[in-house]
Each structure stands twice: as C-alpha cells, then as structure tokens.
C-alpha cells in the first residue's frame, strides 16, 4: 500500500508537471469526474462545479453535488461509469480500492490526475494540480492563499494561549485516535493543541482506555464517525483525566474534519473552538 502511494505520488507529480503547458487546451476541459469527496470540494471551490459530470457516492459537499450522477463508491469506483460520463479529466486520490478502475480509465485514453491528501502541503499541491488541469491556475493560487489565510487567522486567534493537550477520538469501541502524521494532527497543532496520541507513533492508533488515563488530556475532541459521537460513557469513569473532570469532552461534526480540501480552515477553527472556547464565544462545534 505504501508502494502504491509512492507510485501514485510519482504519477501525481508527473501528471501535475504536465500542467504547463497543459496537454489539452484548458478550454477543452469541460467535463470533469471526481472520485473523491476532497477533489469534488476543490473543483467546486475553484468555481468549476458546473463542469462536474460525475462524482463518487461519498461526495456530499457542497449540498449542490447531491443531484450529480454517481460513478461508484470512493472505495470502489466503476470504471465503466467513469468512462461513460465521457470526462476530459478525472480527479482521484490514491486508494487500493480505486487502483484498477483508475488504470482502466487511463487505458481508455482519459487523463487522470491523482492527488495526495495526507498533509497540508499535499492539500496545497492537490489544489494547484487540480486547478492547472482545469486551466484555472490563477484561481488555484487564490484558493490556496484564501485557505492558508483562514489557517493563519486560527493561528493568530490562539496565539499566546497555553497549548492544550488533546486526544482526537475517531472511534469509541475500540478506542481509535488520530495520531501523529495525520492531517488532523497538523490542524490540531495550528489550533493550539498538542496530540497526546503522539506517544503511539501510529497514524490511527487503537488505544487501550488506560492510555487516556496515562496521557491525561486537557480536552477530548470527539470526532467519532458513528452514532457514538457525543456518547461520553467510555470516558465517564476516568475521573483523574482533566478533560473528564472539567467536562471538556467536545463532540465535533466530522464533515470538514476528515476532508483534505478547502474546508481545512473550517476544521482548524472547530478545533480551536474546542480547545480554546474562550477565544471564540460565538463559534461552537457547529
């Protein structure tokens, strides 16, 4: 899987490199298919939403994409549906599930741009690559600048505040957290936090509940993906943990939190509100 990611990164660089001069005249890129929610959001933010002729089943933002034709799941797109949409370009993120479909689409002579989405630097590179492929390089720079400014605003908001030790919970049973090296960890640091799961050295560590006691976070950010979000029962008896003692278990909706797209600034602001509520009395966790 790591090998495939490297290969995909190389492919992304190679394809992004083809951006100038673009192999197809920008004006010709009228039909776009996106195979990932983050790519869909980027295309939309670039003002090219009207060029989307197909999106993946999990693309749900902005709400207007609800009416677009689906070309299969994020984990397993349908090559046939993608090719049938007659796109000029297809945007995808590397995933073992879409590997075969992406190959088949490329074999049909359709350009596929694969973008990484694991760090903020990769998000910026992805925005620029997608913008270049759409012939919207200037809009791409503006989008990157706008989102970077949003992150800068969050940084300023928490500047001078004490760094809060936080646990970013992804699932309750078993307990799974966002670890070091994830985009979420990067956003947490911008929001004035320090990830207590850093001790694990794993990207998405499974944690024994006793690790919550041992690491004693100031804040538990509950971004659990299922119906357990907001159910604090797994933490209730851990009364020595500052977050539990002080009632600082903050549920946040996962929409922006897991998307490596234009809403990373929104996600950072959510985290800042959870970690430093005193800096933004009005902004809650959506």
């Amino acid at each position, binding site marked *: 899987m790591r090998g495939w990611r490297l290969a995909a990164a190389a492919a992304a660089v190679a394809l992004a490199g083809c951006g100038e001069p673009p192999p197809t005249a920008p004006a010709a890129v009228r039909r776009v298919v996106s195979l990932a*929610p983050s790519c869909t959001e980027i295309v939309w933010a670039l003002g090219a939403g009207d060029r989307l002729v197909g999106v993946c089943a*999990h693309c*749900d933002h902005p709400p207007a994409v609800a009416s677009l034709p689906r070309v299969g*799941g*994020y*984990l*397993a797109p349908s090559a046939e549906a993608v090719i049938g949409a007659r796109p000029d370009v297809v945007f995808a993120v590397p995933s073992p599930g879409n590997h075969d479909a992406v190959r088949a689409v490329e074999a049909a002579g359709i350009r596929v741009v694969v973008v990484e989405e694991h760090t903020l630097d990769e998000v910026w590179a992805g925005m620029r690559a997608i913008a270049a492929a759409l012939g919207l390089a200037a809009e791409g720079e503006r989008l990157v600048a706008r989102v970077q400014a949003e992150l800068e605003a969050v940084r300023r908001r928490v500047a001078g505040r004490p760094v809060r030790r936080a646990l970013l919970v*992804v*699932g*309750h*049973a*078993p*307990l*799974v957290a966002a*670890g070091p090296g994830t985009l979420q960890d990067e956003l947490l640091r911008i929001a004035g936090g320090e990830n207590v799961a850093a*001790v*694990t*050295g*794993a990207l998405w*560590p*499974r*944690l*024994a*509940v*006793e*690790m919550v*006691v*041992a690491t*004693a976070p100031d804040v538990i950010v509950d971004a*659990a*993906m*299922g*119906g*357990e979000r907001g*159910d604090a*029962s*797994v933490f209730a*008896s*851990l*009364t*020595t943990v500052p977050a539990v003692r002080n009632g600082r278990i903050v549920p946040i909706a*996962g929409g922006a939190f*897991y998307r490596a797209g234009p809403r990373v600034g929104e996600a950072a602001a959510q985290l800042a509100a959870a970690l430093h509520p005193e800096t933004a009395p009005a902004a809650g966790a959506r």
Partner: protein
Amino acid sequence: MRRAAHLTRRRLAATLAVLGLGLALSVVGATLVGPAPASLARALAPGGAAGPDGIIIFRTRLPRVLLGAVVGASLATAGTALQGVLRNPLACPHVLGISGGAALAGVLAILAGASVASLAIPAAAFGGALGALALVWFGARAGGRTTPHAILLVGVVFNTFAAAMIMLVEALATYTQVRGVLFWIMGSLSTQSYGLVAAVAALALAGLGWLVRHAHDVNLLGVGDEDAYELGVDVEAVRRAVFVAASILVAAAVSVSGMIGFVGLIVPHLLRLLLGPDHRLLLPASFVGGATFLVWCDALARTALGAAEVPVGVVTALAGAPFFLVLLRRSLRRAAA
C-alpha cells in the same frame, strides 16, 4: 473410550485445580501489565482507587481481563462441544453461522445509528446470533432429524451469506459509517462494565453446566449416530441440547467482543491432545484453558506495540495458525504411517 474409563474423580479434580490455579495467576499477571505504567501498591493504598493507578487497574484493566477470560472460556467450550457432537475437527464457533448472524445484526444496528459504546450493539448482535442459530438448526433439519454434515453445510453457507450482506451494507453506507463498522468487526475486549462481564459469565457458566450434563452422551456420539443410538443415546435430543448450548455461549461471546478467531479451534485441539478425548474432563478444561489463552493473547495485544494496541484477533491468529498447522501435520503423518 479407553481413556474415558481412566477418568477418576481425583484426576478430574486435580486437572481442573491445576488449570484453575493457572487461570487465577494469569488474571492477576495480566492485570499487572499494560501500555500505561500503573502500580498495584498505589492503587491499593488508602484513597488509591480514585487515583490514576486505581482507575487504570480497577476501572479499565481488570474488567477487560475478566471479559477476556469469560469470552475465551465460552469460545473454547463451545468449540470443544461442537467438534465432539459434529464429529468434525474443523468445527469451531465461527463456521456455524452464529457469529455471522451476530456480526450482521451488529452492523445493521450501527448503521441505524446505535452507539458502539452502548449496550444496543451487543443486544442486537445477541439477537442476530439467536436468529442465525434457529435458521441453521431448522435449515439443516429434515424429517425431524439433523446430521452433522447438514448442520456444518448450512452453517458455512449462512456465514458466507452474512459476510456478503455485510459487504452490501458497507457498499450502501456512508464512508464514515463504513469505518465505524470495520473497527467494530475487528473485535475488542475493551470494557469497563463489571455488569457486562457478570452477565456473560452467568451465561457461560450455565452453558458449561448444560454441556457437562451431556458430556457422557457426547462421548458416545463419537462412535457414530447409529452405534450411539444402539447404546441408548437419544442422538437427536443430545445434538439439539449441545448445539443450542454451544450457540448461546458463542452468541454471548461474539456480541460483546466481535470476531475473535482461533480460540474455539485450537484450545480444544490442544487439550484433547494433552488430556485425551473424554468430554467430561475436556469441557470444563476447555472452559478454564480457553480463558487463560485469551487472557494472555489480550495482554500481548495491549502491550506488544507499546502505546498503541493491536486487535486481539491478530494475536490469537498469530499464536493459533502455526500451532494448528503443526498439529495437523502431526496427525497427517500419523495417519500416513
């Protein structure tokens, strides 16, 4: 049968006493290890129960170790009973459709929005397991009779069907729901509820008692249905009693811990090798031995990688698969000789 004749009250008591002592020491030992440092002395000191050491040891570790013991006991006992009554060395809790039914019902409950941290999921899974049990039993029955062959076939088919339905559900669910389902299905013994442990333990002990009552008949079934019938065994009644009891043990275990493989397969085989084929000894020995095995597997799962843990099913598979292969090779060589 030769060995069975040698089973004296004294040997039964001595074997179970040794195994029981091993389990008691294992529970204490496993409670003392974990990814976070914790001192039992500090936990037991006045006021220590409310401190970090006390909370780590008594609120998070001990209930988890005890749940591991109860789940391991249930799975191994059910495995021994099913292998005996179906006369098939590959019979184990997970080929009989029961765990498939539990998993499918659990997944549906998660998609319906139930919290994986609540009791709604184990309740749904338990219901699903009982549904699968009824389906397999009545599906395998014809003319008021069942055969081991038919039970195994229907069980395997239902398990595969349930796995496919889970894939269908995953295809229809949102991405975040799928992640939640995948985490849950991998299985975990994490709990802080002594009440849950007690409930599963009560079911496990009741199941064990029920099975031990039929242990002698299970021995006789080993010679084949016809011969057992000649010896005065009500084959159908014994099979039904054992199948239902074993299924309830599995249902309780799976509904609180997800899919933990190999315990119900290798612990029975290992003990059969060590103690002989008499189910009057094997069933209680599997209960205690399975508990000990899973307690240590979970201790490894909690500590092997440092601060992060691995799914306990990974440890049981790593410990179980090579061992099972060795065992199989041995019996193949013996059969060839």
